[in-house]
């Protein structure tokens, strides 16, 4: 079936019940979504499906039905970071970096919905995203910085 990832169309061959995470990582070699648990419990595999954050490990390929997928690779590059990427970098919102793809993807979706999120909005948007390193303090700061400022 056809799958559009970061604006590029692919013809994918995996079984329809295969997870989107597997298709991205193993068939297409797009590795920012991480297999942190493959149980839906950590958020590290989160990608945007038609702009909405989804657990790619829980999403069967056949359910996508022509949807457009955006992964962290599609949000910005080292030369041109997105506002959210820049904020996570500047605010040290990333330590080991393994949760970061999911955090940034979910934050990007949050700021699409809510320009000025409250602390409660941020906690709700990232509630399913687990980080063992930061204690979340600098992640909250990163989201607030991304919401508050244009890209530096």
């Amino acid at each position: 079936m056809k799958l559009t990832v970061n604006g590029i169309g692919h013809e994918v061959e995996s079984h329809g019940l295969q997870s989107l995470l597997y298709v991205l990582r193993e068939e297409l070699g797009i590795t920012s979504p991480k297999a942190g648990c493959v149980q839906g419990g950590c958020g590290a595999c989160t990608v945007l499906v038609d702009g909405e954050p989804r657990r790619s490990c829980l999403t069967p390929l056949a359910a996508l039905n022509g949807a457009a997928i955006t992964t962290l690779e599609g949000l910005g590059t080292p030369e041109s970071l997105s506002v959210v990427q820049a904020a996570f970098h500047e605010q040290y919102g990333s330590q080991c970096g393994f949760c970061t793809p999911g955090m940034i993807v979910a934050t990007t979706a949050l700021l699409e919905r809510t320009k000025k999120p409250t602390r409660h909005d941020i906690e709700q948007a990232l509630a399913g995203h687990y980080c063992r390193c930061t204690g979340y303090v600098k992640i909250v700061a990163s989201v607030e910085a991304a919401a508050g400022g244009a890209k530096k």
Partner: protein
Amino acid sequence: MKAVGARLPRYDGVAHVTGKSVFVDDVRIPGTLCVKALRSPLHHAGIVSLDTSKAEKMPGVHAVVTHKDVPLNVYGHLSALGIPADEPLLAEDDVRWLGQPIAAVAAEDEDTALAAVEAIKLDLEERPAVFDMRIAGDPDAPQIHHWGNWYPHFEAEMDVRQIRKGDIDAAFDAADVIVSGVYRPAAIEQAPLETQTGLAVPEADGRITVYSCTQALYFSMGVVAAHLQVPLNRLKFVGGTVGGGFGGKVDTAAEAICALLALKGGRPCKWRWTREEEFLCSSTRAAWHIEIADAVTKDGWILGRKTLTLHDAGAYARFSPYGVTKHSFHHTGAYSIPNLHFDGYVVFTNRSPTSAMRGYGVTSVSFATEVHMSRIAKELGIDPFEIRLKNANRIADTSPNGIAYTDPSTVPTIQAIAEAIGHELPAEYRAMTPDPREGDLLPEHLAAQVGEVDH
């Protein structure tokens, strides 16, 4: 421009926020096989028979390894420090915890690897297990480790880590009050977001490149070289970018087995532990059982401390003797206690072997001694800040093993917290410093313990 003290950007920050940081599972080598393990389904059992012949013959299976394939099967994480080894890489005669690896397979894909694991024939004879370390020392407790139920190889082949300092009996005789309590911190999972992952690639020149999530490249390379009985230059460890460790990845979990399979199968072999394996089969922080009795005076001096520590090592020793030794060295916490009697045991139980985790050996004693300190303060009716400041270690006070403190900050950190939460301290406590004891702060019972500090 100063670099030290500056809030400079993370060296790897841009790579992290763009998804370009390469973790082991992100490495792509053509022809990589999938590794899965046969693990013990029982907590304690003898291995009656193990037959991998059917699995070996399955199409798509390139290698199956058991203990017979490991040149040096029993090698300890602390063997290099002279601490004897007890744990096999792959179980041979018995299994001592649910999840212990027995055999591993490398196959074309995950489905085939799982099917091959299921095709291995394993007969076990279940044995009684011990889970509560408090009964592991009972005369009729089942023996679950070939060394006995607790570690017998401390210096001079002692089976206990001891600290003895001062005159403990005199301290208990002199005490106005003796407070005892029991503290039991739990086993917890390091729970890094990246599970244990290894990838071993056989190279054309006969070397093996091992992509590893280890926290300690050389340490893990030494462990793999020992199991394989090869010189270090036969191996190249690649890593240094780790998706969280917290101590759990000081253990070398996947690498040696991947390397064995790569050698036997002649193909790159990757083993990414599932989250279930990470929770059930990877090492955990140990549970501890700590009993403390402190001899104190009515005005809040701690004259002496007796401690019994049991450390739940799980099925094998791993780093546990190290952890208990470190624990013993710090069992007075941030205070100067002149008279000590400490006994610590590494106790074996039929659970996943425990290992390092953040604060190793001391997290437990910090919990025990600090809750105990709060209890003593409550019992004596003394302000919890003041009793801590009074007994706080100072320059030239000595540690449990007799080493003088050179730059203690117990006093200023406590003062800073008092100020932060708005707890008003009396002037004499506000004026305290970490300087060597004198006057009222050098009572007779602390005089003998004061040591020398080189300046």
